[in-house]
């Protein structure tokens, strides 16, 4: 049925592209997940302060980023950040160029998108903390920040680890959309390769397998981490 021809894979140029693309994908996914994690942590912490205006602002942020396509968000950041004013004059040529590279724009947009998901995940994690735990911490004289850092965050982050795994795999999958704004990641190089070789089906099948194995590896690893970090009595280990 299919005449699959993988002879192009022997070419070191294409091998180099695939490896470089995969590395960029991994870099983008991990960097954006890390920033998203921080945004989620502080967003959820801010929600626990119960300041009405902050709560409303965060909710708006979360809903906007959750309910619009990440592809459009990326295009929006890519095309508008440069027109709104983030430009600089290239000292060598004197031409006005955008300050942020495509990679930076993709990183910003993916981080905010993931951050919105993380806020939700952490919020439900903090909500599910038993009241007795926070009350015990308060009676032991922990300050608000200490209580969050020493008691709430460690337990809540374990409770919402499965949700975080989901978000991280989702980040990994969403990085493929950064190819649309010419970030040189795996999908982008895949396009380059099939433009060269016209072996579209072969390239796409290979890339699909690379993505599936990366994401499967990640979720397998995260399940292991969940198991190692599990507190007895909390989460699935209970």
């Amino acid at each position: 049925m299919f005449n699959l021809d993988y002879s192009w894979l022997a070419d070191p140029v294409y091998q180099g592209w695939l490896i470089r693309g995969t590395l960029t994908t991994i870099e983008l996914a991990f960097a954006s997940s890390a920033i998203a994690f921080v945004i989620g942590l502080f967003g959820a912490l801010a929600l626990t302060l119960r300041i009405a205006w902050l709560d409303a602002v965060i909710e708006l942020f979360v809903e906007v980023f959750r309910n619009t396509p990440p592809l459009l968000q990326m295009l929006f950041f890519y095309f508008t950040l440069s027109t709104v004013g983030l430009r600089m004059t290239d000292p060598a040529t004197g031409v006005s160029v955008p300050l942020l590279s495509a990679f930076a724009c993709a990183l910003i947009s993916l981080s905010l998108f993931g951050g919105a998901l993380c806020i939700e995940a952490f919020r439900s994690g903090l909500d599910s903390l038993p009241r007795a735990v926070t009350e015990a911490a308060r009676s032991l004289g922990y300050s608000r920040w200490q209580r969050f850092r020493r008691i709430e965050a460690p337990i809540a982050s374990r409770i919402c680890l499965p949700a975080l795994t989901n978000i991280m795999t989702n980040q990994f999958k969403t990085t493929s959309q950064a190819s649309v704004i010419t970030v040189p990641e795996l999908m982008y190089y895949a396009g380059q390769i099939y433009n060269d070789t016209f072996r579209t089906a072969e390239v796409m099948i290979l890339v699909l397998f690379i993505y599936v194995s990366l994401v499967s590896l990640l979720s397998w690893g995260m399940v292991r981490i969940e198991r190692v970090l599990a507190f007895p009595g909390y989460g699935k280990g209970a």
Partner: protein
Amino acid sequence: MALIATYAGKKRTVQLGIALALVAWVALDATGGGGEGWARVWARLPILLTGNGSGWPLSGGFALNVFLSLCAMAMAALLGTALGFGMLAKNRLVRVPCFFVMNFLRNSPWLVLLFAMLYIIPFNVRLFGVSIAIPAFAKAVIGLALPTAANFAEIIRGAVQSIHSGQWEAARALGYMPMAIYGRIILPQALRRMIPGWMNLYALLMIATSLATVTGIQDVITTLNTLLAMENERVIVYFYITALFLFFAFCYPLALLARRMEQSVKGDSL
């Protein structure tokens, strides 16, 4: 209780304030030169919504995204139901491959799967000597339906397995046949838990239809890009905000409704 009420009230006031501030900001921007941008958007809005300058017939734009999401959801419902019950099957030969397929589809990026379908499905098929061309739209439907089906199946499995085992045992003790247990006892209960999940999935699918632009169909993003090629740089921002708002206006009510249903289902676990 009174405190919570005032807090929610306060929050609502702030939300109203934010909405007013946004409107004020847009109005201020409109008087300061942004008016032209909004005028351009307003002039192009029929094309963005329907793919057609006069607004009728519907030939593309956001309407095509909605239609695409409905087609893909219908196909995903069929595939996903088969896959979901395959994963619940007692027979390992059925269950294990179904799990494998589900995991494969769930772990692959939507965009990559869409691209793969675009290139793996041939341009036309010869059936009994008749050559039938496969339109890009059909490929987009299949490409989007596959990952949706996997998620659909997972929702079915999760909901059926969340039904307390006592229900199974009681039904068996009462002498129900396996099919009757599913049809009369388990599924009616599980369905209540599946519906919010399916609604969230549909919202996710609607968001993912933005990716279908890679297949070249005249969806809202393809239309947007065509339109932007004719506009100057300053106006681009207004067009993107409009496109983002279209998706938001479609998906946010769905998400709210799903959340409300989830809350109402939460209590009835047994």
